[in-house]
């Protein structure tokens, strides 16, 4: 694949209201304090990680992301495609409407391309579409945005990825018994008890040119559908292994070139077993450095492909990654020591989701920790 640069990025998440603040918080190993909500009927508490800072409307947040990502002198956007990656889209508005009306009518349903189309009209993008492949949405947005640039379809691509604090998501994952009762988000821990959802709004500008201060270079990636189950991937990790291998092939790299693997690590029973097995298939017992980000960010669902990528690459540029306090007990060799990589290190980043979607990206650092 022709490499593409993440020229600029913006992130609002539980760790901070901007990317620099969030990456500093990660570097300092400061975790966000979640809020508690109750599962309907069961009346059991679960934890949710809201974005830090004051509340804003979705439109205001998305416009702010675009201003930050495009910069003041972005010029006409008639050479730029916008990809909106989100599983929640405008669902919070629909939830409010249903609650106020006491019902939800067929005509209340909004079109799935509404937000992308509104942003296209408001900002003048050449084209815009909504991409929804569950928790791989933003990873696919990066991959296909990069391929569109390499193909010459557009000169620039902007990926917006976000997940709002949706009651449907909170109660739905609760109904599937996938949310952590303890609120301790511990991927690959033997006593892990599920995931903690997180709110996020993220954007990145992709280009074939590096720009003044690129965050990362996307060297390749791969995405495919494991049709064995709608909600889990093959437990033996064979599909994950294959996807990682295909991603490396597309980047013309080998597993031995990888300095760090950013694991998907949802802390659900099935995902962590499958990912562990996939890693063992690819690497055996000799693995590169490993990291997880969800204990700090929460699971940001369809946006995690971008929220985690931006946070990881910025943190590696400016700081070090924190060690994991339970690393000694984890089922994969995660590090309890801080992680610092060479300035041009190559990483593999995994993102898996419902619908059998598995994706891996190969990324290169642009400047190391200082």
């Amino acid at each position, binding site marked *: 694949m022709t490499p593409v640069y993440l020229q600029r990025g913006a992130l609002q998440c539980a760790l901070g209201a901007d990317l620099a603040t969030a990456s500093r918080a990660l570097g300092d190993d400061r975790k966000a304090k979640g809020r508690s909500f109750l599962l309907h009927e069961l009346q059991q508490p679960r934890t949710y990680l809201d974005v830090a800072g004051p509340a804003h409307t979705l439109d205001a947040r998305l416009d702010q992301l675009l201003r930050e990502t495009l910069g003041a002198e972005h010029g006409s956007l008639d050479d730029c495609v916008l990809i909106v990656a989100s599983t929640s889209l405008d669902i919070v508005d*629909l939830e409010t409407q249903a609650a106020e009306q006491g019902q939800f009518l067929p005509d209340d349903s909004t079109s799935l391309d509404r937000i992308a189309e509104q942003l296209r009209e408001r900002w003048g993008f050449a084209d815009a579409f909504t991409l929804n492949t569950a928790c791989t949405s933003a990873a696919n947005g990066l991959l296909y945005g990069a391929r569109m640039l390499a193909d010459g379809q557009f000169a620039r691509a902007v990926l917006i990825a976000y997940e709002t604090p949706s009651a449907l998501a909170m109660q739905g994952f609760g109904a599937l018994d996938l949310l952590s009762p303890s609120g301790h988000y511990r991927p690959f821990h033997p006593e892990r008890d599920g995931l903690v959802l997180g709110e996020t709004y993220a954007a990145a500008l992709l280009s074939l040119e590096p720009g003044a201060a690129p965050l990362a270079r996307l060297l390749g990636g791969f995405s*495919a559908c494991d049709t064995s189950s709608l909600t889990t991937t093959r437990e033996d990790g064979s599909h994950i292994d294959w996807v990682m291998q295909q991603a490396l092939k597309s980047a013309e790299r080998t597993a031995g070139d990888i300095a760090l693997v950013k694991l998907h690590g949802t802390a659900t029973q099935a995902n962590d077993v499958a990912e562990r097995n996939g890693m063992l298939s690819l690497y055996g017992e000799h693995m590169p450095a490993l990291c997880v980000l969800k204990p700090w960010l929460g699971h940001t669902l369809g946006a995690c492909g971008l929220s985690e990528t931006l946070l990881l690459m910025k943190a590696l540029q400016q700081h070090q990654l924190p060690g994991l306090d339970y690393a000694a007990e984890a089922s994969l060799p995660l590090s309890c020591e801080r992680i610092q990589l060479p300035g041009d290190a190559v990483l593999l980043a995994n993102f898996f989701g*419902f619908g059998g979607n598995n994706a891996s990206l190969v990324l290169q650092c642009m400047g190391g920790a200082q």
Partner: protein
Amino acid sequence: MKVIAASEIRGSASTSDKDLKAALSQWLSNPPRRIDRLIFQALLGAAALKDHVRSDCGLYLASCHPARPTMIALLEAVCVQHKQPKPFEFVNSVSNAAGFHVAQQLGLEGPNLFIGAGPRVWSQLMGLARLDVQAGVISQALLLVVDEQGDFCVQGVLLEGDGELGTNSFGELAAGIQVQQLALN
């Protein structure tokens, strides 16, 4: 790229999920259980082309709306009645659930993308499919668009080969091809 097969399924608002299931049985011997209307519709558009599809095929699916009955059930359960949603309804509401079932039923091993269908949906789907064909990831691409606004229409085309088609509508794509049609009124 070359269009090698196309399908068009039409029905009305009164066409029930039971009707959709019955129609599907002519192509699929063992359709999935507990699926919603959007999944039925996507399966119908895809199953009509089943005989032409190889495993190294990508799926590029678009819909204007989520399955409205599923959204109504979920929103009213969670936001009005303050109940937990039914797990199968929540899982079905994941937009790419329809793509998963199509891939599983047809044995597709390629990429599986879902986009919101807007005014440029066919050019967007073709653009995404062409990228995967060019990258050598797949040799075939199945494009499906589901549109339900009162009546519903599912349109599908199966493409193979490289290059641009220069067409932006189902009508142009399917011109000269015998379209597998089904009317469920």
